[in-house]
């Protein structure tokens, strides 16, 4: 019945998760039911989806019915937010990460970055039009910020939107857009004013409009998630699709990043935990030089070092989540947390691969896939370099 490696006891995914002072019965129920959903609806198909390079649309509908897509979003638009605190969000990230296929959650949860700007600063009419079908899993919405000319320096983006009567005319291009091939809409950062952050707006662009071209991009990892370059050639967008006020889009983008970074940190930490689970199971079975791998001091220390870093990341994660749930926006710590989590992931993916040996190099295992997902975690949503720089600035350096 279980699609995963049989737990070997003390070092399985659950036993490795330190008890949380912030999680109670509701979190445990959500974890249990979500795990059933993941094991029944997602896990058996991962290899097929990875090969196909795209997630079938009925998976979104199933996840919508189950409540996964609406999790944390307002009930008024078909979501479920009562009792869904930051720690429920961590449970969601962890259980999806346990699948060991980041591309599946990147695709399935794309609305997690595409939709919030609309709900945070969009008009009532736009919220009512877009959010319900997205939360039902009937259509997808991407976030398009990065351009071929660069992603780190968001304020320097080049795509232009000119106001002409009751429409905007958009010209330019976007790069690395998750869900870009399959989403109906993209929450798109465009330049409506002068240079710098003060000239940036957010525009909801229907990707089926005339003048939009999409090109698929092949990637190192995250294969279940389609990624695209988007080209806008005199694309006409109704003026009511402006999200928030003109030239006030930058704040909407920044608000989004904080939530995204917390989620990515939770996912990266849990993926690192998957690496330990797999490595520990293998180390306790595999014998070399007359004893178990786990009995060689070098290997024992590798596993202990992985646990050490994952537990430190988990404690930092929960502390940041607690601060956010108290109403704070600890930007420096959210940035450093993301770095902490992705460096932990990088370390654990490497060490688990060494412990698995040649088996780690064969396609289809969780560690092999996670190894190929390290860079997108360390670069996407704010690279490690940019995160440290942001933190240093926030710290007043």
């Amino acid at each position: 019945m279980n699609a995963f490696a049989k737990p070997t006891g003390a070092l399985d995914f659950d036993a490795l998760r330190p008890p949380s002072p912030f999680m109670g019965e509701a979190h445990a129920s959500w974890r249990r039911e979500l795990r059933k959903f993941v094991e029944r609806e997602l896990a058996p198909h991962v290899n097929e989806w990875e090969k196909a390079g795209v997630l079938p649309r009925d998976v979104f509908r199933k996840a919508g019915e189950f409540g996964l897509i609406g999790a944390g979003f307002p009930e008024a638009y078909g979501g479920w937010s009562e009792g869904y605190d930051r720690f429920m969000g961590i449970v969601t990230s962890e259980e999806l990460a346990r699948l060991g296929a980041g591309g599946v959650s990147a695709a399935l949860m794309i609305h997690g970055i595409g939709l919030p700007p609309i709900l945070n600063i969009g008009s009532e009419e736009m919220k009512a039009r877009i959010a319900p079908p997205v939360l039902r899993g009937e259509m997808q919405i991407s976030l398009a910020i990065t351009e071929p000319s660069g992603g780190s320096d968001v304020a320097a983006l080049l795509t232009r939107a000119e106001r002409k009567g009751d429409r905007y005319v958009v010209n330019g291009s976007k790069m690395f857009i998750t869900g870009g091939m399959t989403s109906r809409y993209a929450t798109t950062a465009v330049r409506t004013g002068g240079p710098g952050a003060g000239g940036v707006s957010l525009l909801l662009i229907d990707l089926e409009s005339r003048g939009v071209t999409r090109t698929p991009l092949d990637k190192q990892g995250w294969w279940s998630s389609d990624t695209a370059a988007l080209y806008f050639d005199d694309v006409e967008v109704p003026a009511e699709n402006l999200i928030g006020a003109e030239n006030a889009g930058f704040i909407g983008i920044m608000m989004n990043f904080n939530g995204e970074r917390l989620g990515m940190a939770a996912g990266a930490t849990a993926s690192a935990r998957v690496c330990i689970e797999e490595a520990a199971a293998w180390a306790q079975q595999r014998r070399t030089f007359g004893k178990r791998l786990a009995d060689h001091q070098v290997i024992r220390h590798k596993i202990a070092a992985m646990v050490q870093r994952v537990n430190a990341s988990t404690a930092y994660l929960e502390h940041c989540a607690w601060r956010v749930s108290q109403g704070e926006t600890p930007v420096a710590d959210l940035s450093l947390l993301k770095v902490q989590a992705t460096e932990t992931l990088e370390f654990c993916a490497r060490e688990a691969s060494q412990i698995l040996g040649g088996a780690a190099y064969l396609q289809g295992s969780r560690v092999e896939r996670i190894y190929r997902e390290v860079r997108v975690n360390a670069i996407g949503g704010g690279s490690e370099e940019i995160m440290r720089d942001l933190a240093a600035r926030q710290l007043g350096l």
Partner: protein
Amino acid sequence: MKVLVPVKRVLDYNLKVKVKADQTGVDLTNLKMSMNPFCEIAVEEAIRHKEGQPNVAGSHYKAGTVTEIVAVSIGPDQAQETIRTALAMGADRGILVKVDHEVEPLAVAKILKAVVDAEQPQVVILGKQAIDDDSNQTGQMLAALLGWPQGTFASKVEFAGSKVNVTREVDGGLQTVALDLPAIITTDLRLNEPRYASLPNIMKAKKKPIDVKTPGDFGVNVAPRLKVVKVTEPPKRQGGVKVKTVQELVDKLKNEAGVL
């Protein structure tokens, strides 16, 4: 019609069972506990007869056949979580009968009989057994105590007026028995595939009521009547051997295995 569904909290079915070093029982410390899978099937069956299956053409599950589902668990405080799972799946309310030690099937059946007397359900759907001690006794004992007909190891349950037809998995095939209500049904593995509770239902379940009782409230003595002498691991299976010829095989079956 009102249905009572007893649910038991057991060691999660994914976990490997380990015997305690002192051989007094199975080690449960810090291990994940879940609802007994056969009980999950029982909850699912009750819900399907309540909700029907509007998306399945010709389904024998008709909405409204069942109108209320009461989940009851006998166990420690934490068994409330098991009841919450049933409530999140779709049961209406819960009853916890709080006991902190193991309760043997006969005592469980006596408590359930008292709950049945108080609640007056038309049907009790139970798992055919719990995966911890695999007794496979409670449903049958409850039927005897109540004097109700029983349909055990059900693979299909169809309500028809004042009767219920239960298809049972028996050696060599399927047997269908028609029972007069009220009746006892115990579930087999192939009866249905239990649902996962949706997020909204998990949240709503937190507001559904759970009554907490003790065996004393029902005047039932739950003191154990059996003494566990010793619990041991099953003997390790020996690895297989390859034989070169049919002769060698026959020889081994005769002289080593002693089956010929």
